């Protein structure tokens, strides 16, 4: 909830909305997927998180591709299909966390 940008009346509305969310009358806004709390926002932390997000999607894609290839005996076709998908998923993971930065 952006209390500051709503003007003088905004603080009441945002507090009202927070109270309504707490009582289950409204659904909370979708979390942005960003990890809140600025304490971990050092360059080292951001780099590690970025790397983990990218590599994890890639690992899953390679595991699925390789496993299916082993099962169907079509090595390396499915691995080659899943590899770009994994790269794309990794980039979309990173975009979801670090993109759209104000």
């Amino acid at each position, binding site marked *: 909830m952006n209390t500051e940008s709503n003007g003088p009346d905004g603080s009441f509305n945002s507090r009202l909305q927070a109270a309504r969310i707490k009582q*289950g009358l409204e659904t909370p806004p979708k979390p942005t997927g960003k990890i809140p709390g600025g304490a971990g926002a050092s360059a080292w932390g951001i780099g*590690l998180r970025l790397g983990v997000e990218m590599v994890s999607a890639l690992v*899953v894609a390679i595991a699925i591709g390789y496993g299916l290839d082993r099962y169907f005996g079509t090595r390396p076709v499915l691995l080659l299909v899943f590899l770009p998908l994994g790269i794309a998923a*990794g980039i979309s*993971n990173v975009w*979801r966390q670090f993109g759209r930065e104000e």
Partner: protein
Amino acid sequence: MCGASSGARNRGTQVAAEGHSSIDALSQFKLEPALGAIGHSVNFTQANLMMVVSSVLVLALLWIGMSPRAMVPGRLQAAAEMCYETVMSMCTDQIGHEGKKFFPLVFCLFFFILFGNFLGVFPYFFTFTSHIAVTLAMSLFVFIVVTFVAIERHGLHFFSYFVPKGVPAVLLPLLVPIEILSYLSRIISLSVRLFANMMAGHVMLEVFAAFIIMMGTAGGLLYVGSAISLSVNVILIGFELLVATLQAYVFAILTCIYLHDAVHLH
């Protein structure tokens, strides 16, 4: 388990034979049977022991802390109440009203990991969160719970989660697999984040602790380097405390975010 002490204990003879020429950073993560012969026969390792200690400490904090049930809480009761309220607000803020149902899960995960991370900072203690097997088991559990909650709430409608909104139908065959892969990658990213942070911190501690001994035994001007390594290690311990808290918090908050997605879908 900290630094040179563990290296010296585990491979004392070997280190002496090599004349302090190698840094043995990884033997601190080796599992060994704990509790003597009984532990040996059932493969009860020191990691299991630390898990038990961590759970017992959490229970003890709540049990002993809340036993006075005073209107004006004492120190321990205030700590226990603060733990409760922190996780409760985390749940309700992230998930919404339904978050109260998932409070026990998030509370257990957060404090189990937090106490495990903190215990790992003590010398001779073992950090069970520095094993991928442990963190992967926890993140798999979270993933399965999240998926089951989503399917239980939304039925087959759950699969619309993988269809991004406002996308031309031509692109869907490409985007749906990407979304599914992205969803599956949560298992890996959640576990690797915790595991990598804990392991990296403890390897760094061990490396600098080895520098202290190596430079200290070399003598001469290297005493200065030894002193610098010691002070770096002191700073690293403080840094480790920060990482321990932060990673437990990140694990819990990401569990909450995933649960929000499962409950509200989009």
